[in-house]
Structure formats: C-alpha cells, structure tokens
C-alpha cells in the first residue's frame, strides 16, 4: 500500500513540476498586470516545439554531440526564443491595452493564444510529432519504487528554477520593482522604476520558464501536437489559481497538489490526500468560490 502511494506521489511530483513551471508564468503576469494571460499555455506549446526543433537539429549534426550538450543546447535555445516571443506578445498585443478595460485585454489574450495555436497548426499540420530521447531510458528500483533519471532531472530542474525565481523576486532590485508594480502601477514610475522594462522582463522570465517546462514535458511525454498548449495550459492555470489562493501563496505547491489530485483517481486511492501537508482541501473550495481566486495576484505581494 505504501509503495503504491509513494510511487503515485513521485509520478505526481514529476507532472506537477511541469505544471508548476507553467503556472509560475500565469501567476507572475497576473501579479504584475492583473491579466489572465490565456496565451501562456500556447507560449508553453511553442517553447516545446522550439526545443524539439533544437534537439532534432543538434542530433542531426554530424558531430556526434553528447546527449548532455544536446539537452543544454535545446534548453538554452528554446528558453531564449520563447522569452523573446513572450516579450514580443506583450509589446504588440498587451501594452497598447494597458489603459483599456480589463475585459479587452483578456479577449486579446484569448485571441493571441488561438493565433499561436492555429499558426503552429498552419505551419506544422495537425499530426503529432515525436520528441527524441535525450535522457537514457533506464529505471532504478529503490525500496520497491521505480525511479528514472528523467524523473529526478525534472523534479530537480524544476526545483532549481523555482528557487532561482524565488531569489529573484525576493532579493533582487528587479524583484522589488515587480512587487512594487503589482501594488500600484501608477505610482511606481514616479519612483523612477522603468515599468515597461520590468513588465517586459516579467514576460521574458515567465515565458522562458514555460519553455523549460516544455522541454521537460517533451522528454517525459514525447508526443507533441499543437493543441497541447490549451490542454496542459488549462491544468496549469487551475494549478496557479488553486496554489495562489492557498495560504502558502506558492503556486508550485498548488501545482503539485493539483497534479496529485489528478493522478489519484487512477490509482484508486484518494485517501492519502487529506494526510499530506499540501494545501489540498483548498483546491475544491477555492475553485468553487472563484472570487477568492482573486488572490492569485497576491503571490508577488506576499513574498515579504
């Protein structure tokens, strides 16, 4: 029984880490602009395809590059380009609407998301693509648990990115500016904070992290199609809402508990959920009372 639960938790942690990386982007943008960036899931999708392209290209070179190099190369390439994509979207689509009613901005976000999706569909066609194997497929048995190197890579990688982001938001000047803007966007420029640049950087960081999540997702679930952005982005979005409205204010916890929840029914054991320290009970209640979800934006603010 314990093994099933532990294995279940481990698998949930793997998927949850990916969700968490996407959810961070939702939360950062919501925190700073109070905009639900519906396009974020599709940015994640583009990031995944970009890492696929980079991986295929690097593997195809007649140099016999080691897999580690290919992995790092694909990661850097997709993070960089997706960051640019995020900035461009913000610059072209969201910035002109900063003074407009919020509904206009949300509709725009929806439009941008569908545009990215259909654009990708137009270029690549609807058939799924296969992601090459970059991490050796092997499994270790520890105390009856099956652990793969990929699992460790995803969980650790996500953890490292989250710690880095946390450091950025809490300890750096940029992070302070982000938090300040989330409090009051009108006053902050008077203090000499370059609001536009900070918002651009927020989009860049959020998108880059989503791209990292995209690469990890591609490695773990190696079949990609243009609709994955909406499909997975939607779960990640729920994770962001759930996580941010939990007391801890950390979207990653929400993502993890949410992933746990999605996995559990398959393993026929909902029992452990109540026993975990994750803020699970808040999922259902916060989702049903969506006004509370407004606190999603508080993540940035409550870091102090």
């Amino acid at each position: 029984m314990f093994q099933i639960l532990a294995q279940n938790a481990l698998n949930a942690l793997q998927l949850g880490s990916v969700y968490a990386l996407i959810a961070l982007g939702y939360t950062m943008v919501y925190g700073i602009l109070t905009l639900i960036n519906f396009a974020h899931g599709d940015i994640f999708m583009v990031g995944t395809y970009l890492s696929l392209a980079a991986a295929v290209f690097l593997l195809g070179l007649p140099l016999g590059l080691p897999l580690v190099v290919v992995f790092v190369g694909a990661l850097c390439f997709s993070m960089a380009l997706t960051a640019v994509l995020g900035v461009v979207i913000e610059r072209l689509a969201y910035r002109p609407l900063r003074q407009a009613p919020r509904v206009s901005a949300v509709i725009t976000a929806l439009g941008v998301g569908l545009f990215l999706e259909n654009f990708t569909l137009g270029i690549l066609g609807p058939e799924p693509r296969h992601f090459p194997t970059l991490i050796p497929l092997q499994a270790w048995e520890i105390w009856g648990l099956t652990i793969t190197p990929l699992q460790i890579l995803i969980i650790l990688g996500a953890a490292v990115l989250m710690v880095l982001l946390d450091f950025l938001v809490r300890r750096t000047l940029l992070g302070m500016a982000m938090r300040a803007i989330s409090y009051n966007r009108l006053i902050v420029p008077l203090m000499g904070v370059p609001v536009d640049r900070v918002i651009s950087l927020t989009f860049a960081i959020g998108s880059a992290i989503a791209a990292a999540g995209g690469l990890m997702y591609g490695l773990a679930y190696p079949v990609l199609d243009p609709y994955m952005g909406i499909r997975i982005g939607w779960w990640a979005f729920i994770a962001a809402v759930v996580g941010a409205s939990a007391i801890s204010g950390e979207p990653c916890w929400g993502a993890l508990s949410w992933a746990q929840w999605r996995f559990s029914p398959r393993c026929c054991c909902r029992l452990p959920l109540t026993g975990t320290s994750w803020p699970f009970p808040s999922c259902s209640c916060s989702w049903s009372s969506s006004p509370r979800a407004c606190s999603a934006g508080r993540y940035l603010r409550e870091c102090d």
Partner: protein
Amino acid sequence: MATLNKPKTSLISLASVLLLVLALVLPASGVLNPYVVQILMYVGINMILTLSLNLVNGYMGEFSVGHAGFMGIGAYAASILTVWVLPRAWTPWAFPLVLVVGGLAAAVAGLIVAFPSFRTRGDYLAIVTLAFNMIVKSVLENLEVVGGPRGFLGMPRLTNLFWVTAWVLITVLILRRLVYSNFGRGITAIREDEVAANLTGVDTRRLKLYAFLISAFFAGVAGGLFAHLLQFINPRSFSIIKSTDMLVMVYLGGVGSLAGSLLGATIFTVLMEVLRPLGLWRWVVGPLLLVLLMIFRPKGIMGFKEWKWLREEKVASSQ
C-alpha cells in the same frame, strides 16, 4: 408624437414582411444560385448568435466566452427531436417548435452560467464560461448515444432561407423590445456600474438571470438552425473556436448595438467565405482580427450606436 411614430413602425413591419416574402420566393425562383443562398443562411444564423452574445457581452458587459456551448446544446436537442422523437412527416411543420425546444434546452443550461455570475465578474466569469464550453464539448464527446466524437446525423434539411430570416427578425424584435424597456436599461446599468445599479433599486441578480436565459435561448435556436442546415453535427463544431468567432463578430460589429451585431455577422461571414482558399490558415485570421480589433477599435464599428430605425421610439400613448 404618437402620430409621428406610426408610419415608421408600419414601415418597418412592411419591410419585414417583404423580406420574408423575398426569402421564400428568391431561392425557389432560382434567381439566386444555391451557393449564395447557403451563404445568406450562414449570415442569418451568425446574426442570431451575435445578437444573443451581444446581450451578455455588449449590453450587460459581462464576459461570456463559451457561447458555443449553448449553441451546441440547442443543436443536439433539436436534432434529437427531429431524428428520434418526431415522425419524419411531421418535422417540416413542427420545425419552429423544434427550434424553440432546442432554445429552451440551451436556456436551462444558461442557468448554470447565470448563477456563478451572481458572485463573479470579469475575468473569473470568463473562466467559468470557458469551462462550461469545454464541459459541454467533452460531455457530447463522451455520450456514445449521440455518436460521441463522430457526431450525430440524420436530420432532414429543414432550415431554409425563410426560417432563418424569420428567426433573425424575431430575435431583433424581441431583443429590441427588451433593450428599450426597464429590463434592458437595467442590464446596461449592470455594465456601467453594478453597485450603483443595485443602489438605485435594480435587481441585478434577476436581470443577469434574464439576460443569460434569453441569450442562451437564441444561441440554442441558432444551433438548431445550424444542425438542420448542415444535417450533421459533431462536438468539435461547438468548440472554443466557434465561441471565438462569435466574439469576433460582436466586437467587430460593435458592443451594445443591434445594428452592430447584424453588421459584424455579415462582414465576418462573408470575409471567411472569401478567405476559404487559404485552407487551414483561415483560422489564423479570426484570432488575429480579434487582437487587432481590441487594440484599434475596442468598441467595434457601431459601438453603443444604433441605426435610426432600430432606436427607441417614443412610446405611443393616447394623448
């Protein structure tokens, strides 16, 4: 005043009757080729959809992005009625009733969205409606009885230009009467300032309920018309893409305007038809148009304006 208005009202009724006669005669006489008639019917169905969505998004200022869900429910309900329930011979006569039943089914679903709207506004209601759209689609996909993802077929082709025109006229008439009554003014007051509306005695909850019911009803009717035009429906026809198309038509034509809805539906439908050769790329146009509209013309062509004959007439009184 009263005497001044009489000619205008009768002129409009005359024009409506003329339109209906034309809709009956033109396709039969063969003056219009069938392709054009087909496009006209799509324009009409889209007009109904746009008018219905405009009530919620334009007049009430709420934010529904899942309207295709209502349309789907109406389409399936009406189709089940004509295919399974009614004897084939009756269907041509029962068609208006079938559409009304489809509309009512959608209106019941409208309740599901109306209740969250009491507590939630803006972004979060958008999420609720989006989720509603997705739920409808996946429920339909999982219902093997109605064909699951393969879709549902066997409907007779009952939709013709006459019925489409008639329903467009009914929709315009009813919505116009709603908009220029205290209920309509109350609905616009919700858009402008919900708290102040409540404090001036407007029962905002009840009005939200009305708005969602009426809006969902007409979306359902449009779904029924759509199903009996194509004679084949599947859940994918009622996905978020369809909802986005409706949003584009509303925001293209103009929020809070009946004329805008008619205009937006016409322009968008014809445009999509012209762009048909682009194939898959055609679907990039809608979202792109939506983004550009939001940036450059957020209120649309006719935002909050109305054609003269659609404006409020002074209520004719005995004095």
